[in-house]
């Protein structure tokens, strides 16, 4: 339950932050929220991964649909002949990787801060 809330919060807050601030708000938000939600290492990593992947992949998939794959097709070609769908997945994976890492780092910070129980 806590992880689900974490994922939802990460998507909402991550989206809000990245409208204005650079892309690395994604791992930073995952870290801070993992700390706030007081998540253990694995849930924080997987939750961060899933939340960020959903946000990046979902937004990319949405833009890709509107664009009918024009841009992603070219980017896929640029990165060695990938399909537009592969580029969406790659985007999700990229975001997810950093979200997971951020979540993990946040969770581990719990143990060294006084607020940890």
């Amino acid at each position, binding site marked *: 339950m806590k992880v689900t809330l974490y994922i939802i919060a990460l998507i909402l807050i991550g*989206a809000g932050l*990245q*409208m204005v601030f*650079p*892309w*690395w708000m*994604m*791992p930073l938000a995952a*870290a801070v929220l993992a700390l706030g939600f007081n998540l253990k290492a694995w849930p924080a990593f997987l939750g961060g991964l899933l939340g960020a992947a959903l946000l*990046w992949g979902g*937004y*990319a998939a949405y*833009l*890709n649909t*509107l*664009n*009918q794959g*024009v*841009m*992603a097709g*070219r*980017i*896929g*070609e*640029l990165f060695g002949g990938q399909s537009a769908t592969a580029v969406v997945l*790659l*985007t999700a994976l*990229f*975001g997810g990787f*950093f979200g997971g*890492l*951020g979540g*993990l*780092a946040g969770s*581990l*910070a719990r*143990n*060294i801060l006084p607020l940890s129980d």
Partner: protein
Amino acid sequence: MQFLKFASAAAIAASLALLASLHQPLGSSLPALGPLFSPFTGFWQNAEPVGAHADISLAFPELKGEVDVVFDKRLVPHIFAENLQDAAFVQGYLAAKYRLWQMDIAIRATAGRLAEVAGERALERDRLQRRKGMLFAAENALKGWQRNPEEIGLIEAYTRGVNAYIENLRPADYPIEFKLMGYSPEPWSPLKSAIFFKSMAETLSSGHDDLPATNSRLVLGDSLFYFLFPEYNPSQSPVIPPEVQWAFTPLPLETRQSPPQEMIGQLIPHRQFQQPPANLGSNNWAVAGSKTATGRPMLCNDPHLKLSLPAIWFEIQIHTPEINAYGVSFPGVPGILIGFNDYVAWGVTNGSHDVLDWYRIDWADEQRETYFYDGQARPVDKVVEVIRVKGRNQPLLDTVRYTAWGPVVYENPGQPYFDMAMRWVAHDQPAPKPFTEIGTFWKLMQARSYDDYRAAMEGFDNPIQNFVFAHKDGDIAITVNGLLPLKRPEQGRFVQEGSSSANAWYGSIPRSQAPAVHNPSRGFVSSANQHSTDPSYPYYYNGNFDDYRGRFINRRLEEMDNITLQDMMALQLDNYSLKAEEAMPVLLGMLDSTATALLSRPEVKGLQAWDYRYEKGAREPVLFELWFKEAHRATFDELLALQDSLEVLLPEPWRFLDLLRRHPDHPVFARRGSGQPGQAPAIVTGALESALSQYEGQSWSDYKDTGINHLANIPAFSRLHLPVGGWRDAPNAISEQNGPSWRMAVSLGEEMEAYGIYPGGQSGNPGSPYYENMVDKWLDGGYERLLFLKQPGGAGEQLLFTMSFGPEQ
């Protein structure tokens, strides 16, 4: 332990995030992947929704009135403004909106600022651009513009429009190339418009072969040199029909105290810098009502520039109380360069005149601070070029020396006492006059009569252009326009001695005496980069003129009658090569007795039956091109061997054919080493054998391999290996990388009926459905009906959306 775990996780996350935020991390060629892949900032933000076009309303205090822009179904903006400056402002805004990166990179490439964003690999190119004085040329052009309030007013309004767009950009909105190359757009300026304009001067009027000509004359001796390299092809059909009489008294060339030195009696070891490809060119023509089905004139133009994505052209209509014009513009320059209005149509082709000459500089000191000029040691003007290079902490400083002639471009450390300076029309500050090049186009956009057209010509200095003109009420005309240096015979054909002012040009040919013709009796005017006139023209000029397209087009226009617009388009798309038509009988007739076996081969039989058309699926053009090239190479092998160490000329194709036809016994047809003259048949037969051995049976389009490259040569943003016919000698001059960059055909009348197409799309964004949406139709020889609106609306479903601009909301 807990801390260590956290610290390592945090450190890994942070360092990877940092790595993904850096452009070209750890010396790789990767862009910053984090911001690039983020759907909030990266390439996803350039993925334009297809088919969604919301109306936009914007306010800018720079505007004086309301401006409405409607976009038609091909994303062509139709600007309706209350005054010229507002129109120019919005043109600038839209140029930036659709072509911002292209504008940026064009300026960098021309002015020598590529290394700032591309690093070391662009450094030598940048240095050359600086040495060529491209910025010097642009600054001088700008000084001319600034003298004329109306002209600079338009350029400044355009600049404000570009900057109004840039100022409101978030990094997420940057064109994708900025994201990939890791830099940001800079503000535009009038100087940048001048630099863009000078990029055209560089492309179209910087050709020269003074160095190889000088060397060839020395190596070959005068008699053989003049035999191999005549300047005029007697069968040429010049731009101005030969029946035109020159009804003026030519200016006498002033006599000079010291006699001019014709050429330097020594070999020039310098290598020439890379020049625009020889197959850049264009066609234009206008036919009188007496030859058309409508009884009114028709005008066509197809400029053959380097094909690129984003395309060099941006289609636009500009409507104000003074103007209603439609045509193509350059992103970076206000106005329409080729187009039509309610009364007239106009177009341009390159003049191809030699307006760039080289002067040998004799240094008076080893530091190259002074040079000999009229018996004195004159100091050079040193300009220190500061070239910033991405990845270097310190900029590279390069000193360029300016002489009375111009910048010293060619330097040779092996010969400390002589270098070469460049004398180029495009460097010159225009003489004071009411308007210059930009003004010329705005005058044409407003032209309502032949007299308006002629008046518009006055402002235009460089590059030399053949301006074709037609009026709906019947006038047709063509003017070879621009600043033509006044030269004594053969001046500037060879490198000249720079130590004497007696070797300078004699001024320029008076504009009233420039080659021009108005309503010639033959009922048409045309140009295709061929000689402007026949040799009866009283002034000397030289250049790199085309030999075949113009002759063929004139022959066709002569034959045609009751012409429709479809006939005109068919001529633009004609893949017929007059060169092949003339060469084939000569080559076949030259085959010797050993060729019987060759003649029975099916490929050669096919060639004998060939219709001289460079169709995409045809195979004959491949074999012909190989054969011709081999024969030319085998004939001039001695010259080719020299080219390894020295720049020399090779005879032009027309002259080569001429020699085969008329002088087959000449010693040039001696085979290398044999010393026996008169071996033309053996050379031609051997060339066919050699061609057959290279010939792999591929189709013409596969062999030619036409491609439209992205401006940063990114294959994913390019259209490569295109199935398309045509060749540089045919009207449809599609070669490997150059070709008709805009095809326009206009039937003039009370209602203008106009068609056009270019190989690209209105948007410069590879993520837009309008990036290259016209390429396929262009490949198939299709045209778009150009939507020429009277008011902002009324075209129904043909319109995509509207942008409204006003001084305030």
